[in-house]
């Protein structure tokens, strides 16, 4: 299991255990934010790879 999947599962599980609506909301929102972090990380990594891959400068 990837690190991202583990974190997602833990956050969903923790949210389910919260009796308070607002607490449940917090952990679920954090899960969405983590997904956003993952997406941004992939995009940044992709852009770095793209900009570093410059055959014209080899």
């Amino acid at each position, binding site marked *: 299991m990837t690190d991202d999947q583990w974190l997602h599962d833990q*956050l969903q599980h923790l949210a389910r255990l919260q009796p308070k609506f*607002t607490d449940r*909301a917090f952990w679920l*929102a954090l899960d969405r*934010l983590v997904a956003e*972090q993952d997406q941004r990380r992939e995009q940044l990594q992709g852009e*770095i790879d793209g*900009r570093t891959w410059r055959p014209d400068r080899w």
Partner: protein
Amino acid sequence: MTTLVLVAHPHLADSTSQQFFKASLPATGVTWEHLDAQPAFDIAAEQDQLRQADRIIFQFPLYWYAAPASLKAWEDTVLTRTFVYGDHRYPLAGKELGIVVTTGMPAKAFQRGGVEGQTLDALLAPLAAVAHRARMTWLPTLAVHQFGYLTEAQKLALVVDYQRYLTQPQPDTLANRQAWFADRLASMVQGLTPEQRATGELIATTFDDHRSSLDELTDTLAMIKETEDD
């Protein structure tokens, strides 16, 4: 940061959306006032509350393309010319003004060609003009359309979107969102049961790692771009 929420609603107890917002209020840093519940506005006290706040929120349902009458009554009574700009002191300058508005029509209705034919930004122009005159910063509006049709998952998402609208530094960037959650994570972990706390701590650590790795990638990319500019 201190936030003042002024709610204009003639039948607050009957409003599920307003009761939902009230139940979603952050535990600290927010003062909440129901304008319609005031028999008469205490001008000095109201102005003092405004002076204390960093962010001021007008919260109301949209009635005939405007706020309910209590907000206008409050404006006309409390926002005296001398207070807002007359003595050239501008006590509200630099404060943020945000609008939380609920509508019975869907988001798509509020655009040219839509059923309402007007954007919310256009309809809220009189309030934006007040903010401008008072030298306040106008925040992008938080509009909640057809609250009654929201799913449980959408309502859960709205809890945190609303809390962030009240207390998160603007603009609403990923960096500011991360900082808002990071500020609350330790106390949320503390609030977990002892059996859940270890998981909470691991989540907090992993979240911090993700945040740092994003920062590093952003720095690396900035460096690459800088060299390309040469």
